């Protein structure tokens, strides 16, 4: 595993029902690799929140996951509207989601804070009108 393993997923922005499929698949992969359950859960939840965000805020995107000896890295890339004020977006409860999104159980403004909480490293690179790339790492051990 010293070279690292990579996984790539397309996240369909059209279909809320299928959102999260990439995270479910990744969770299965991590189980097969035999990582500790706590690490698997943290990676899964962080990736799932990010995947949902790409669907509800950015019209979909791609997810790349690298599993190395020391950490699991998740890179989420979209060509959506971008995030104008990242500091504000990171605040618990801040959300631009519509009522229709809220009625689907998301849009509580907890996604980015959850991603931060579950990862050991998180960086958001975003440009308005261009898109967003979020990199997260969860350390193993």
């Amino acid at each position, binding site marked *: 595993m010293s070279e690292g393993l990579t996984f790539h997923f397309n996240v369909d922005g059209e279909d*809320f*029902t*299928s*959102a*999260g499929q990439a*995270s*479910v698949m990744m*969770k299965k992969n991590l189980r097969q690799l035999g990582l500790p*359950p706590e690490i698997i*859960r943290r990676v*899964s*939840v962080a990736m*799932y*929140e990010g995947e*949902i965000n790409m669907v509800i805020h950015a019209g979909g995107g791609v997810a790349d996951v690298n599993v190395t000896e020391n950490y699991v890295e998740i890179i989420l890339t979209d060509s959506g509207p971008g995030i104008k004020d990242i500091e504000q977006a990171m605040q618990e409860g801040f959300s631009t989601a519509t009522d229709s999104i*809220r009625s*689907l*159980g*998301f849009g*509580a*403004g*907890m*996604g980015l*804070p*959850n991603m931060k*909480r579950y990862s050991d490293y998180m960086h958001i690179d975003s440009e308005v009108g261009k898109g967003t790339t979020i990199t997260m790492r969860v350390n193993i051990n």
Partner: protein
Amino acid sequence: MKISTIKELLDANTVCGEEQLSRHVYSACGSDMMSDVLAYVKDQAVLLTGLVNSQVIRTAEMMDMNCIVFVRSKVPTAEMIELAKESGIVLLTTSKRLYEACGILYSNGLIGNRVKD
């Protein structure tokens, strides 16, 4: 608390996972907002919710929850049942409302819940 006890206390019906009713849950979480559920960390918890869509099942799957109780007589869709079966998650439905269902479980000793840090 055994899942079968939850079923009894809430006068619930089993939608799927009948063969897993002897499994235990050690904590509970009641919410219609999935990010609130995802903010909460505990193994072997039961999720109580009035929300009905596939994300409820995926949220439980992400959190390693082994039982979901749908309140207010909400009925999960065929697709949700399929996803739950794949993930080995027990689905129950009760006519009780969220507040009441949570209160019953809480007063019967299913207490532990904690948000990380």
